[in-house]
């Protein structure tokens, strides 16, 4: 009896992990098809990677961790990247379209506007730097002066 229960206790987490990984991959694929033509990206210059950042007005980690991490990234990358910030409370339809169910959520898009990384919860600057580098050349490689132009922080509802 104990042995049977032990086998079940080992098998269930494995099955759950398999379902989770499959579900995540399917959701990412669906987003990859839909995102490039999403109206949210209408103002995004062609050929630039971007980060779509979902927050809420009362999201403490958005203010204290995610926003500073994105600001630091923008200082490093300058005009080589865009950040599109969306208030998930004010624009629930956009949040639903992008499969957002928590804040902060950051979605890293490549130059073809295809989502390559989805971070649910705070994405540290190291994580974002690595993800961005994986979809685009680093600023130094592009010959961009990080202290040059203003950072590319954009928002469909205005620039912060």
């Amino acid at each position, binding site marked *: 009896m*104990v042995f049977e229960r032990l086998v079940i206790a080992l098998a269930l*987490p494995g099955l759950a992990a398999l379902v989770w990984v499959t579900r995540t991959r399917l959701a990412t694929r669906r987003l990859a098809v839909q995102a490039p033509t999403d109206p949210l990206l209408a103002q995004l210059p062609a050929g630039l990677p971007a980060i779509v950042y979902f927050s809420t007005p009362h999201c403490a980690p958005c203010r204290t961790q995610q926003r500073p991490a994105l600001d630091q990234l923008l200082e490093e990358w300058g005009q080589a990247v865009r950040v599109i910030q969306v208030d998930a409370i004010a624009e629930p339809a956009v949040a639903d379209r992008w499969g957002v169910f928590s804040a902060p959520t950051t979605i890293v898009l490549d130059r073809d506007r295809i989502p390559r990384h989805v971070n649910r919860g705070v994405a540290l600057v190291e994580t974002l730097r690595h993800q961005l580098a994986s979809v685009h050349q680093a600023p130094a490689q592009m010959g961009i002066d990080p202290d040059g132009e203003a950072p590319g922080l954009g928002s469909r509802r205005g620039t912060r």
Partner: protein
Amino acid sequence: MAATPEATGTVRVDHSALRTNQAFIIGLLVLAFVLNRWPLVASVALVMLIGTAIPSAGLFKAVYFAFLRPAGLVRPDLRADDPAPHRFAQAVGGAVTLASALTLAVGWQVTGWALSWLVVALAGLNLFAGICVGCLLYYQLGRLRVPGFTGTATGRS
């Protein structure tokens, strides 16, 4: 005027304590299932609910603060965060665990253990993937503008 931590609901939350709490919940509920002991499920529910009502009396977190952290077995992971969604998540988890214990006590084995495994799954999602489903529920209630649900907890990436 600069927002104070009190005004924003933001304080330093040790996420290692939260993860230790989740690990204990998972370990003890799985052990209860393997040994088929519903009183152990009831004990976990009690610890979770007491820890929700009186955070300083949380037994699993106390083990972390009294032994695991001082011994250097688990490193602290302090983050500016809102503890309210985490407390809400634990309250929901504690309620489901209590329902599991009561269901098992009256002999409804399948339903009872299914509820326990639900708690294990959700705690595992939080522990291993950094996704706090209770916090997401809190976020959704905030989106629906339910009074009292205005914070958002952090996960990790």
